[in-house]
């Protein structure tokens, strides 16, 4: 009886104290400019989402350390608030509603972005995303912006570069099998890549779909390898791509790997047991993979701290960082702390002042929210260093 009473007390006091805490939000002092971050901090995608949030925080710190954002001669602090959505759409919506006061909400994935597209215009906030899905910018939403490629633009580039690579290395690289991840990106990649690849005279020998939760891919790979492909195209982030490559090699695959998402480098080698495999991996990369690009090298040097290592290896840190930097510059350029449309339009001139940048974003199209980005082909050496086999970067 007594134990029971203690239990009741414990639960009630816990609930009570927590609700009390929850109620008191922190109020800003001099009208900070608010940016909302919706990202998975727990669950399967936690590693990815946390890296993104680290990048955002790094940019926020830097901006606030330098006194904040200058708008019409007045300095405003930047305030980034994070909301963990675990990649669950209903949580993304709650997060979006909670952060709808923000001038911009920035998310690191399609899963977190799409749920907000229903109300970002009504609630008047810019929606920035690292979504590569074409639909993100083809819906006529006036307040969306990408901080990465639209895959419709990138994938044909990839197919073309791979073709050039094969010619240069005198490799037989005609038939490709695709391991697509069962999210929105996989099928979209398969569609775009198949079209471009076949247009270049290649063939697709098969497609297998899998869930990122699944770690044993031997069944799918055994099936794909029956088509004797010259290469396997992989559409997932590095640790998952590493699993595919490892297991394909173990099953006797000797060809090339084409990575659409993972750029290789240490982000990949740390997950690979067999370093010989790595040399045959080629990938499209955005500028940020090459330390040899001065702006990228400098940035990586600045954030060489252990705590950023994993986020930078996953190439998600830079996206978090640059999106915030770009946004801050646009607010400053637009000269407003509240008019989202004006800020959205100002992203264009702001980008011009940020050339060259760590992501290699060269152009911005305000009408749709799409961007243009410099991409390269990368090959990873067994020691984890990447280089451009086509000679664009050394």
């Amino acid at each position, binding site marked *: 009886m007594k134990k*029971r009473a203690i*239990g*009741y007390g*414990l*639960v009630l006091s*816990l*609930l009570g104290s*927590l*609700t009390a*805490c*929850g*109620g008191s*939000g922190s109020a800003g002092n001099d009208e900070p400019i608010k940016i909302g971050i919706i990202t998975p*901090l*727990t669950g399967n995608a936690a590693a990815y989402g946390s890296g993104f949030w680290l990048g955002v925080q790094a940019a926020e710190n830097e901006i606030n350390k330098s006194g904040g954002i200058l708008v019409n001669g007045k300095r405003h602090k930047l305030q980034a608030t*994070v*909301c*963990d959505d675990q*990649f*669950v*759409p*209903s949580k*993304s*919506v*709650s*997060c979006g*509603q*909670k952060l*709808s006061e923000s001038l911009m909400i920035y998310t690191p994935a*399609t*899963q977190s972005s*799409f*749920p907000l*597209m*229903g*109300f970002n215009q009504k*609630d008047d906030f810019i929606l920035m995303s690292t979504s590569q*899905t074409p*639909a993100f910018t083809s*819906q006529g939403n006036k307040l969306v912006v990408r901080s990465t490629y639209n895959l419709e633009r990138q994938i044909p580039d990839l197919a073309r570069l791979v073709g050039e690579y094969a010619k240069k290395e005198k490799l037989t690289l005609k038939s490709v099998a695709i391991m697509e991840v*069962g*999210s*929105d990106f*996989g*099928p*979209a990649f398969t569609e775009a890549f198949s079209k471009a690849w076949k247009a270049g005279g290649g063939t697709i020998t098969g497609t297998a779909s899998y869930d990122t939760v699944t770690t044993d891919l031997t069944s799918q790979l055994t099936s794909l390898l029956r088509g004797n492909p010259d290469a396997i195209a992989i559409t997932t982030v590095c640790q998952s791509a590493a699993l595919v490559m490892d297991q394909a090699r173990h099953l006797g695959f000797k060809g090339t790997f084409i990575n659409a998402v993972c750029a290789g480098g240490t982000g990949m080698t740390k997950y690979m047991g067999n370093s010989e495999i790595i040399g045959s991996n080629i990938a499209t990369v955005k500028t940020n993979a090459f330390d040899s690009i001065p702006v990228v090298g400098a940035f990586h040097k600045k954030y060489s701290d252990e705590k950023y290592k994993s986020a930078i290896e996953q190439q998600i840190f830079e996206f978090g960082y640059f999106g915030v930097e770009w946004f801050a510059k646009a607010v400053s350029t637009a000269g407003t702390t509240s008019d989202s449309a004006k800020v959205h339009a100002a992203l264009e001139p702001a980008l011009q002042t940020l050339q060259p940048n760590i992501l290699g974003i060269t152009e911005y199209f305000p009408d749709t929210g799409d961007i243009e980005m410099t991409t390269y082909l990368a090959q990873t050496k067994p020691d984890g260093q990447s280089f451009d086999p086509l000679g664009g970067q050394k």
Partner: protein
Amino acid sequence: MSVMSKAVLTRAASGLSAGLRSREPGRREWLIIVPIVAVCALLPLVIQGRYEVGVMTLILIYAIAAYGLDLVLGHLGLVSVAHAALLTVGAYTLVILTTKYGVGYWWAALAGVGVTTLAGLLLAGITMRSRGHYFSVSSLAFAAVTVVVITQWTSLTNGASGIYAIPTPPGFDSTISLFYLSLIVLTAVLVAMFLLTRSTLGRNLRAIQADEVLAASLGINVVATKLKAFTVSAAIVGLAGPLFASWISYITPSSASIMEGFNLLVYVIIGGSATLAGPLVGVALVVGVTEAFRFTELYQTLIFSGIVFLVLLFFRGGVVGSVARAWSRVAVRRRGPEPAEVPEVAVGPGPVALPHLSPADRGGPAEPGKVLFEARSLTKKYGGVTAVSDVSLAAREGEIIGVIGPNGAGKSTLFGLISGVVGGWSGSASFAGRDLRRLAVHERARLGIGRTFQTNRLLNDETVLQNLVTAAYLHRPARGSRSADPDDGFLNTILDLTGLRAKANEVVSGLSIEEQKLVGVGMALAVRPRMLLLDEPFAGLRESETPRLMRLLEWLRDQGMVILLVEHKMRVLMSLCSHVYVLDSGQLIAEGSPDQIVNDPRVISAYLGTKNA
């Protein structure tokens, strides 16, 4: 506090206090719905802001689904993780119809309810025969397959990318109006849940949850009733689907995941399963608390885990169940025990005659001497052991037949064969000209075979009257009759015959063994059998109680009923039975009049003991 509101609160408390198993709520317990809905309706006046109202709307929508789940969980005791998948099916139906086929919102929503119901029936069909963990894991598999099907059926569902720009219901496009629409639906669900727990279906579900074998022996079609429950459950979840789609405005297969289904379960458990307010309170607590502690980021999940553990350990009936129980305990201490609920049976001298029991309404008047039941060469084997071997017996109308034999001789198995609980036997059995072989337990009960069990099987958490009302399921009054007594006076008669009138409103588990035995007999009578199988009804009765039951059986016999009586008390058998069968090790070793039996040397050596022989 006015007298009225005090009464309401007391009712409410007792309504909420239904702890772990569902029970029939009092007639006025629906009053608890009023404050719930009122508080919900007023909340947006206090708590404003798009985000806050949005969260509250989500709570209402999840609550609707949680009630649907609780129908299966609280009233059938089945732990389903597939209900989030059902919700998603409803949401997808709306979304696909409105965005791809341009169907109007309301029609699409209606279709959503329909398709969800069908999906629920499919789930029921797949899992119907599984119980306990088997059911849970089957439902888990159902959810997993739903996710895969939605993901892979790209042409219809857009696959993993999901569908966005989902319309809101016309006229309810603001956050606040969607909140009130959800509240209206939830109110309807609350009322429906209340009515359902007091309906025949509710009673039958409780009977099934308590004891499937008992339920079937009362003539309840267990499979059909479960199917009905699943249908209603899925339909309620189906109501939540379109609302959810409109609220979220973007839907992906992940809403159907096992984790989401598990969350729904947690809501119900935390709030209090099988209570009227529990699921809503559970959703509000869990969703509210997690939203409130979002700022703690990762620790949010740990806090959540801690709360779930504490509730599981200390709030054993969920928050609502436990708080209400504690409240009613305090109330009882302060004011003395609550007066028993107003008896729902008119008190008065019941009719002495039992016209309902006359076989007249069951195909002709009783013809004493006519063979009603006949069995030939009944044999039942369990693995290598023969429990009943080549037993033949017959029973004539207006006869009490005794079956005796040492424990384990096969008497209970024999009863099981006749009532249908035990299957897989050989031989033949017919009742009133019907072959029993292909008939299920409930069908035999409907044909007029009633029974009691050796170890008394009753609805222990319910009152005597509720037990009888449930048992009288087959003979409910015409639609529209409001009387709790389904057959004016019939249950009254049973109460008189069994002498249980004074205890009509007492909970069965609190009765003495004798009284519980009589409730068992009363329940068997409420089925209005032509043949009554009584398994040791006199065992455990005090000598003073024995004559009453004997007179009752004699009287029933005189009404033309057949009684098959397993009993150890020889004096009782001697005076009641016209014919006695003796079983030993599954075999019929003797039969005849009681006098013949007691003098049969085989019987003396096998059963009565050689000592005096």
